[in-house]
């Protein structure tokens, strides 16, 4: 598998009247061809801003990409001119968002919106574009696509709108689909539909996917590799099995202990992560997670730990690198004792 996208040392800032927001702080990651990368983090973790920076969709000002490289198909996307970038955005990388309604123009029919992309980027005539659009809508599972294509966005349900967005994203055979919390606003049964759809399309078309979410559980059955973000940094990066079995960063461990599981039989007391995420304006010097960390040692307050390999392909940015497997095991055991 070849490298499709490689991001090196990305840094994004927002200049506000209160000060400079350190939104993304030296983020490096890659996506291989055909791979699904899961990006998990809470609001303010920088997961969306990272991807928007990759796509150069950060409003400037107030935003500014202050450092970094984004290598995609042999080019640094941060260096190419705007015209070229627009080509990449429409053709090579597609992006879908949380709220499909705001990404669709409410006064244009679905047909107009999809065919426009096809005519513009692929130089099709209207006849061809319409036929292709219907094909795409069928592909994303919209029933009666021939009729529904002339509808307006508000005539679709949330799940259907997200399907339309995916169809538009796929119009030009992208190599990479960036999905920014596309199911957060949807119900679980609809979420399952969309996840299945993206998985199917990924395998059929052979594209790579970056799936951004706050829901660690969702990625378990979807991603090949996961990066965990906190305060604009990657704190852990690991193949999917390894991450859930033996998380090595206290934040990831905390997340796994703080979400109730559907298959929980005994009522286990959740281990909440106390406190709040740090202020991104007054950015801490040491590890940003230190104030909320159970394992913090003195060094954590002084020096920000680098991302270090703990086992093959598994990285953690932590001075302590606790063994998550053991901690989870002990936690389950103590919970069982308590409830007996």
């Amino acid at each position, binding site marked *: 598998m070849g490298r499709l996208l490689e991001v090196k040392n990305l840094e994004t800032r927002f200049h506000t009247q209160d000060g400079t927001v350190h939104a993304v702080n030296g983020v490096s990651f890659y996506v291989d061809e055909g791979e699904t990368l899961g990006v998990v983090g*809470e*609001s303010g973790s920088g997961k969306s801003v990272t991807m928007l920076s990759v796509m150069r969709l950060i409003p400037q000002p107030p935003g500014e990409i202050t450092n970094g490289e984004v290598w995609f198909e042999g080019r640094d996307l941060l260096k190419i001119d705007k015209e070229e970038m627009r080509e990449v955005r429409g053709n090579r990388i597609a992006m879908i968002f949380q709220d499909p309604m705001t990404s669709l123009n409410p006064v244009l029919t679905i047909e107009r919106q999809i065919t426009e992309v096809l005519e513009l980027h692929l130089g099709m005539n209207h006849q061809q574009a319409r036929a292709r659009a219907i094909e795409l809508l069928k592909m994303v599972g919209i*029933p009666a696509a021939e009729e529904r294509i002339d509808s307006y966005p508000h005539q679709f*349900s949330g*799940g*259907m709108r997200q399907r339309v967005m995916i169809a538009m994203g796929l119009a030009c055979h992208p190599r990479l689909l960036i999905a920014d919390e596309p199911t957060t606003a949807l*119900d*679980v*049964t*609809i*979420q*399952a*539909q969309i996840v*299945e759809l993206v998985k199917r399309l990924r395998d059929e078309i052979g594209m790579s996917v970056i799936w951004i979410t*706050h*829901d*660690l*559980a*969702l990625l*378990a*059955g979807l991603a090949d590799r996961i990066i965990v973000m906190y305060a604009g940094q990657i704190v852990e990066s690991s193949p*999917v*099995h390894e991450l*859930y079995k033996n998380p090595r960063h206290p934040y990831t461990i*905390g*997340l*796994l*202990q*703080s*979400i*109730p*599981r*559907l*298959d*929980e*039989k005994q*009522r*286990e*007391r*959740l*281990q*909440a*992560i*106390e406190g*709040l*995420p740090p202020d991104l304006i007054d950015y801490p010097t040491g590890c940003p997670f230190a104030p909320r960390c159970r394992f913090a040692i003195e060094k954590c307050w002084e020096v920000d730990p680098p991302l270090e390999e703990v086992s093959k392909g598994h990285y953690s940015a932590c001075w302590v690198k606790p063994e998550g497997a053991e901690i989870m095991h002990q936690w389950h055991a103590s919970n069982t004792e308590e409830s007996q």
Partner: protein
Amino acid sequence: MSQGDVLLDVQGLKMYFPITEGILIQHHIGDVKAVDDISFTVRRGETLGLVGESGCGKSTTGRAVLQLYRPTAGHVYFDGVDLTTLKGEELRRMRRRMQMIFQDPYASLNPRMTVGDIVGEPLEVHGIAKGKEKLDRVAELLEVVGLNPYFVTRYPHEFSGGQRQRIGIARALAVNPEFIVCDEPISALDVSIQAQVINLLEDLQAQFGLTYLFIAHDLSVVRHISDRVAVMYLGKIVELADRNELYENPLHPYTQALLSAVPIPDPEIEAQRQRIILKGDVPSPVNPPSGCRFHTRCPVVIDVCKEVEPEFKDAGGGHYVACHLVH
């Protein structure tokens, strides 16, 4: 499981919202049948979870129980008193005993009131305390929910989502209620903050012997916090059982599909699981399907489902379900 006496008894509750047309003379052209004839009980000291997807009527149920919406039909007995017959001052006084925690910690606090005023207001309007006494009680309440008592002079916007939700909880606790409707209290919060609030709600229940009606769309959270769980679909309760019974042995095809759609944070389990992917979307509550309301999306539908509405009854051991395939 606690086997307390029944605190809340809901019978045949219906909540229709009329749809009207016309400018001067309003014609009644139909109803949004948000809640359509549901019955359930909540025992003292227990947590009844109410789950369902958006538009299933779970939040409307919570509001109709508290008479924030006046039900179209049915009865809501709270400790033996039928709330639907109470009006004005009688109902207002009853609110001391039942409270609500809201979903949106940003919208549910008045931005122009201080935390002290927000938490102290119920004390004042119910004549429990005022002045210095009120302030002391507010400080005490803030401490109970894990906030610094010195926050009394601050305004809601100075707090994070999780902290605001704590303020909302303190406000609900101010009048020493017996029963609290929790309407999606954690769905607007970040993952790492959700556990803090869940733990707080559990602690408060143990400390004050509270009874909860816990409304949520997150099935994992509902399993965690509830003693019994009711599943709603399009204005109806389709299944109700003890938590482990419902999650281990779901009888209704909708419950089965719903549970199969919820991801589990374990790649090995996920690889083994069979997802039941439902077709299409939830139909409109204005013209709900005939017979069983789920028949349009049900993977195991039979002819009778399209015509006859299944009865909601006990399938054994207090496991209630409304499905022709079970009865």
